[in-house]
């Protein structure tokens, strides 16, 4: 199979329409960490899952983007969710199922999914 540049253009346009990457605007910013560690642990499928979930619901005000290693390689794949005027939340050990919950509960509902958020509840009170 030989994929022509025109084919890639068409696919890219379609994907772009789904992701609506708008710099500096939006209510929520989702960053999927795509360092070597992230990619090796499945970040590509996590990114795909976010794109799919985002395309299902009306999420024009959600910016989906990628970045490098978040510094916690053993907990990849990871993503950072940042709601406007709120502190960013890092989610760890992601799967496409977890992505679905994060989108529904945190991105849409505004409630942090504590089950797979980094550090929340990890402090022990003795």
């Amino acid at each position: 199979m030989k994929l022509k540049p025109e084919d890639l253009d068409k696919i890219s346009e379609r994907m772009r329409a789904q992701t609506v990457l708008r710099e500096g605007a939006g209510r929520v910013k989702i960053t999927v960490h795509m360092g070597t560690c992230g990619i090796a642990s499945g970040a590509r499928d996590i990114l795909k899952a976010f794109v799919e979930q985002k395309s299902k619901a009306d999420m024009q005000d959600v910016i989906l983007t990628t970045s490098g290693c978040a510094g916690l390689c053993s907990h990849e794949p990871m993503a950072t969710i940042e709601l406007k005027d709120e502190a960013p939340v890092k989610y760890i050990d992601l799967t496409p199922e977890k992505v679905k919950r994060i989108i529904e509960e945190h991105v849409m509902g505004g409630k942090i999914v504590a089950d797979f958020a980094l550090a929340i509840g990890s402090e022990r009170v003795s």
Partner: protein
Amino acid sequence: MKEIALHILDIAENALDAGSTRISFEVTEDIGRDLLIVQIQDNGRGMDRETLDKALDPFYTEKPGRRFGLGLPLFAQAAREAGGTITVESIPGKGTDVKATFKLSHPDRKPLGDVPATIELLRAFHPAIEFTLEHRRPHLQGGKE
């Protein structure tokens, strides 16, 4: 990495970090020569001789605050495990050319994976960058796919 497509994605991320505006991917599956060739070329800032010599060293990285850079070493390992080789050529200011070969029939060769879908994702998230992919299967030329 489970697939060669993921190594390709990882090397592409390096190319993006290097400020490339054009990244080309070439995948050749040559059954006649029992060879899989994966080549990634970019027009990023490139590396000088000294940096290039260290590029395959897992304990070398150009990223500030990091101690490891595993992308190229892992790709090299994947090639070596499948009876292949890796070459990295680079000219400062011009770009970098990474070429890995694999023995196509080697039992330890990782599956190629979905390269077009991987490049789709890259294009979606980096609309200003020109990505091209050429997938060659010489044994199929003139025949059916």
